[in-house]
């Protein structure tokens, strides 16, 4: 029986200085909090879903069965439709804008809704993504027409469908094989995953998230409110402070991965393309009438969140 705070995530495990930045962030967070609480709080990191299934994390935190998790928030979209805003195509188009949410109305409202569900957001982490393709680069919406693409979320699937793509669904460990055999032509995911899935070996082109992107994902470090409330005021303050400090690391690392993915694909001989402002606007226009509309119609909270988020555009 260990009193350590357990942090679970689905990303590859490493050390505090090497490996996937999301794992590094958890480890550095743990070390810093441990130091500042003088060992009052101890942590155990469970990388690679080694504690529980990815989809069970959010719900377990709500019930107090899991202490902390770093997970793409939109994964909980089935349980809490409001959180789909964390992977809404074209709603966030730059890191500046994404990180601005924390202190904007939209961030405060999202925070409130999550608290209501028993979740405390500790670190606000945003990450850009791109498209790996085994054929032409998918830049303009027209490029997607007729291709078999894995969007990876309901909202991405909606804009891909509207662009005329054939949306395919398959588990993430099959992405590589499906790209290899041609069961799938292209996949949208974060820059970090584009690297860790080694898709450059089976891709001919890459659309990056460097600079501008319509694929931005919110994957915060979160804590169960039930667990948070049991801590002393001082410990709570340290956790929130360290969490906030980690955001700089997250932002820098995510942007490094955006550039690194381009270098990796270039080296593998793939054609690497960046998105222009005008292209992002085109995808945004599609999203507005499909994914955004679909989201706003879920409930009043969703509509309100979307309205507040649009203010940050």
């Amino acid at each position, binding site marked *: 029986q260990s009193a350590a705070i357990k942090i679970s995530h689905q990303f590859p495990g490493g050390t505090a200085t090497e490996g996937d930045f999301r794992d590094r962030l958890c480890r550095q967070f743990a070390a810093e909090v441990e130091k500042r609480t003088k060992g009052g709080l101890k942590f155990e990191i469970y990388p690679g879903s080694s504690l529980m299934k990815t989809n069970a994390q959010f*719900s377990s935190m709500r019930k107090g069965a*899991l202490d902390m998790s770093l997970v793409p928030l939109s994964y909980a979209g089935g349980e809490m439709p409001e959180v789909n805003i964390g992977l809404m195509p074209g709603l966030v188009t730059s890191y500046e804008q994404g990180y601005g949410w924390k202190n904007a109305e939209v961030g405060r409202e999202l925070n409130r809704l999550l608290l209501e569900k028993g979740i405390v957001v500790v670190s606000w982490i945003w990450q850009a993504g791109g498209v790996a393709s085994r054929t032409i680069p998918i830049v303009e919406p027209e490029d997607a027409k007729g291709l078999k693409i894995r969007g990876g979320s309901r909202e991405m699937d909606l804009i891909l469908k509207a662009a005329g793509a054939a949306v395919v669904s398959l588990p993430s460990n099959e992405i590589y094989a499906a790209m290899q055999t041609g069961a799938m032509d292209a996949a949208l995911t974060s820059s970090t995953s584009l690297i860790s899935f080694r898709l450059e070996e089976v891709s001919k082109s890459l659309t990056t998230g460097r600079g501008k992107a319509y694929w931005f994902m919110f994957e915060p470090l979160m804590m169960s409110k039930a667990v948070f409330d049991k801590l002393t005021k001082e410990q709570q303050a340290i956790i929130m402070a360290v969490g906030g400090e980690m955001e700089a690391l997250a932002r820098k690392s995510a942007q490094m991965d955006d550039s690194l993915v381009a270098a990796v694909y270039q080296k593998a001989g793939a054609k690497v393309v960046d998105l222009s402002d005008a292209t992002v606007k085109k995808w945004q226009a599609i999203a507005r009438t499909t994914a955004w509309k679909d989201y706003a119609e879920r409930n009043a909270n969703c509509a309100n969140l979307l309205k507040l988020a649009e203010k940050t555009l």
Partner: protein
Amino acid sequence: MSELTMGLMYGAATLVVMFSGMPIAFALGVVAVSFMYFFMPSSSLDTVTQNVYEEMASITLLSIPLFILKGAAIGKSPAGKDLYSAIHTWMHKVPGGLGIANVFACALFAAMAGSSPATCSAIGSAGIPEMRRRGYSPGFAAGIIAAGGTLGILLPPSITMILYAVAAEQSLGRLFLAGIGPGVLLVGLFSGYAVYRARKEYRMAHAAFLNDGTTSAYLEVEHFTLAQKVEMLPRVLPFIVLLLGVMIALYGGYATPSETAGLGALLALVLIAIVYGIWKPRDLTPILSSTIKESSMLLLIIGMSLLYSYVMSYLHISQSAAQWVVAMALSKWVLLAVILLMVVVFGFFLPPVSIILMTAPIILPPLKAAGFDLIWFGVVMTVVMEMGLIHPPVGLNIFVIKNIAPDIPLKDVIWGVMPFVGLMFVAVILLCIFPGIATSLPEMLMGAK
């Protein structure tokens, strides 16, 4: 309480409950839930069912019933017997040809079914009586079928490989391809041994005849006319269609692995409907009910094993065990040997499905750290688990043989399978020296990893 004490208690509790004879699924659940109750926050008990559901709600895992259905459609229709007869007709002239025919029939069937007992019973029910009629010693006949049946989990599709691919986060398509080379190697080794043993038994029968006139079926000459041989050919055709259809769908980029499972099952049902006229609900009932019986049993074990490994992970038992293994700083190959030995010991009592589910969280991290290719290891582990299927005390395939041929004494069966356990061991050694046996096919077809 230290993690070591906790781990020992967990292991002891598991042993006691398992050996009480409680169904594996419930035993895993009981051990996990009691440890949750005593050593974990009470809120963990509220997440039990959702965790089990999340484990099961994976389309990769749920393709298992469909792979079983495909095997049952062939195995429970005359298709299995026809496949066997056709191969026999063509191979009987080769010395030891009947033995080879049985190995080949097992391999072909294995390439369509996902599990070993299915392969064993489908080919064995025709093969064992035929081999014994032709004078093969009962132990030898039983050994060939028991060993040939184990190919069911090595040649794709394979239920254990599905579980391994999910646990190790490897591509199922790649893992399936990696099983083919070693499968062919084992077919070669088994066939070679079958020829050697059949000739030895033939010589003994011949000597006995010269000595005191004892006759043996070994000495009779069987003959098939060319017309008979040609007539048997079309019976193999459905298998070729099924095999190629599924392979093309998967590796030609037409279907995902789970879609391939559905496609294969449907294709098998359509083939037995066309070729054998099996389509009426009454005819399909035995096929479907045996499929459901096996699937429900397996999936319940899979679901409950999540709870078991969740508790092991939460109490830091698997991590400590893995760290402990790493800290021993064993050389790469000693580490492998220790881990495989553990799999062998588990194989004394547990079916492959449970072995993978219970050991993966502990053995995969050290292996990964030691730099082993996890696709290659998946294949090696599968061959080692094949040994567990036929070695006593609990060898699933031995029980199947006892059902098909109850009059063969258990002692004969066990002595009959032992040489094959040895051959599998040889295959493991060869795989370690020449990893390309497993890895070259996926690299050739799917690119370097």
